[in-house]
């Protein structure tokens, strides 16, 4: 009778390896969901409480396909960017939130608005509207780049920053003025 191979001699050792695999898989699957805001007070609170970090507010609804894609990218990069940015989702179908929707003039969903220390940061991406980012990001890295540029600009004291993405990665949209 051949003696078993030295490495996997005992059952408890194999069990330990298996446990490790399962736990790794489980930890990769789980992700902390981004906070969804439905009330005006919540939005106020988060804007005022985020200090020295970029605040990314996504305005959209979960039924929209584009919105889901954007949400996926936001969720995946939320942890990477967590040291200098906070990401939150705003459900646009709630009543109290309409104040903000009108204030920021959000008509197309999803729209992302950036804040830094309760200051609204503008982003010049070559589109007509600098106050927000309309549409989804092509890649996780694109989102991280935009947030980094906003952070750097804000730390230097700028109110508007230039978008680092090439024009083909920027979603195009047309602004209507009074339905013209």
């Amino acid at each position: 009778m051949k003696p078993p191979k030295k490495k996997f001699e005992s059952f408890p050792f194999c069990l330990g390896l298996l446990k490790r695999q399962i736990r790794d898989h489980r930890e990769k699957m789980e992700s902390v969901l981004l906070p969804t805001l439905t009330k005006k007070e919540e939005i106020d609170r988060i804007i005022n409480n985020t200090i020295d970090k970029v605040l990314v507010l996504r305005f959209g609804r979960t039924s929209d396909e584009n919105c889901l894609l954007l949400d996926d990218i936001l969720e995946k990069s939320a942890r990477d960017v967590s040291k200098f940015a906070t990401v939150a989702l705003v459900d646009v179908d709630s009543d109290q939130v309409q104040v903000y929707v009108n204030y920021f003039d959000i008509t197309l969903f999803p729209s992302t608005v950036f804040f830094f220390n309760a200051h609204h940061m503008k982003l010049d991406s070559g589109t007509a509207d600098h106050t927000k980012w309309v549409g989804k990001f092509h890649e996780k890295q694109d989102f991280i780049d935009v947030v980094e540029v906003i952070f750097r600009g804000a730390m230097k004291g700028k109110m508007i920053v230039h978008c680092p993405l090439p024009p083909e990665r920027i979603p195009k949209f047309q602004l209507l003025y009074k339905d013209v």
Partner: protein
Amino acid sequence: MATLEDSFLADLDDLSDNEAELDESDGDDAKKDEEDIDMDMADLETLNYDDLDSVSKLQKSQRYLDIMHKVEEALGKESDGTEKGIVLEDDPEYKLIVDCNQLSVDIENEIAIVHNFIRDKYRLKFQELESLVNHPIDYARVVKKIGNETDLTLVDLEGLLPSAIIMVVSVTALTTKGSPLPEDVLQKTLEACDRALDLDSARKKVLDFVESKMGSIAPNLSAIVGSAVAAKLMGTAGGLSALAKMPACNVQVLGHKRKNLAGFSSATSQLRVGYLEQTEIFQSTPPALKSRAGRILAAKSTLAARVDATRGDPSGTNGKALREEIRKKIEKWQEPPPARQPKPLPVPDSEPKKRRGGRRLRKMKERYAVTDMRKLANRMAFGTPEESSLGDGLGEGYGMLGQAGSNRLRISTVPSKLKINPTIAKKLKERNYAGGATTSGLTSSLAFTPVQGIELCNPQQALGLGSGTQSTYFSESGTFSKLKKI
């Protein structure tokens, strides 16, 4: 004088008398020693001895018979309630247990001797069997079963050995060199087998007895390490209170057999564990954790022994709790480390750039360094107006370049490490090779300097600057574009 001689004689007599007395008193001891020596000699000479009884004396000895008798008695009757009043050492049952411990060790040695005897006799019949079946009791059983049989297909070894070994044994039996034994040798061999099996059963009885009593004598200790190992530990330590007084590091190595390496490398791990090696807990830990497990076992079993020595917990719950603790700790060691979470990105511009130095950086910096020429151009001589590219103080100043006062007629033509734009390099080349058929009429290789007069070699030309007289309006390589015949 006579009295002196007489006294001397008397002394001599006394001496001899004393010797005689000493001899007598030592006689018994000497006899015992001789017996022991004979025993040892017997061990050495078992090969030659034909008689089993001269080889294995234990079964006939008084001590053995006494203890076995007591054990059987005690096994027969139920133990009456534990008498807590008596100190442990005075309990007659405790004494019996200590004796039993010693006896079991003796029986083991005896079995080894008998095994040698059987092996030597049976070697003539079936030599290979001793290497196939290692365990002495199994060997004895197999020998008894096979007897003088040549054809192993008629012998049923089921249940005695694992089937793989049975197969190997039967195959080997076909090709064995041995011959059937003579009747008397066979008889002796079978007797020896019976003796070995008897000894084995006796040992089992003794151990069972000790184990059964261990629960009442040291319940906590036996809860952790098991009754057999607990009995062994107690036996080796010389009592429960002696065991309790030992520090845990000593308990760890009780019963440690010093292995004679005999030329083998000592690089292999030799764990410092004695009887504790035989515990269930130790056997079931993975080899990497065995040393840690040995240490924790020794520590907790020492605690349990101390509890037992003072009869603090007769029910054994303390021992069970310690065992549970040990099990949990060993399981915790085997847990895999927590998975590494991906690190979030650092805050931009929070870490200052680490500037590196070194030869490579220096070589790179040389390409953009301030050249000697530029250094000279930046300096100006006092009192003398500098020459300039457009003349009369207009344009770029040349500073000390090409000044008459400077020591050198030419700036040394060390190959510059400057990186020059390829288009500019082409233009410079063009200028240098401008001499030829297409030289512009406005170039000159002479220079007119105020102090030295005419210089035959224009120092500025060597630099590629040309004299200030060279025109930039008229191209030096181009020609008239339009020629009209008048």
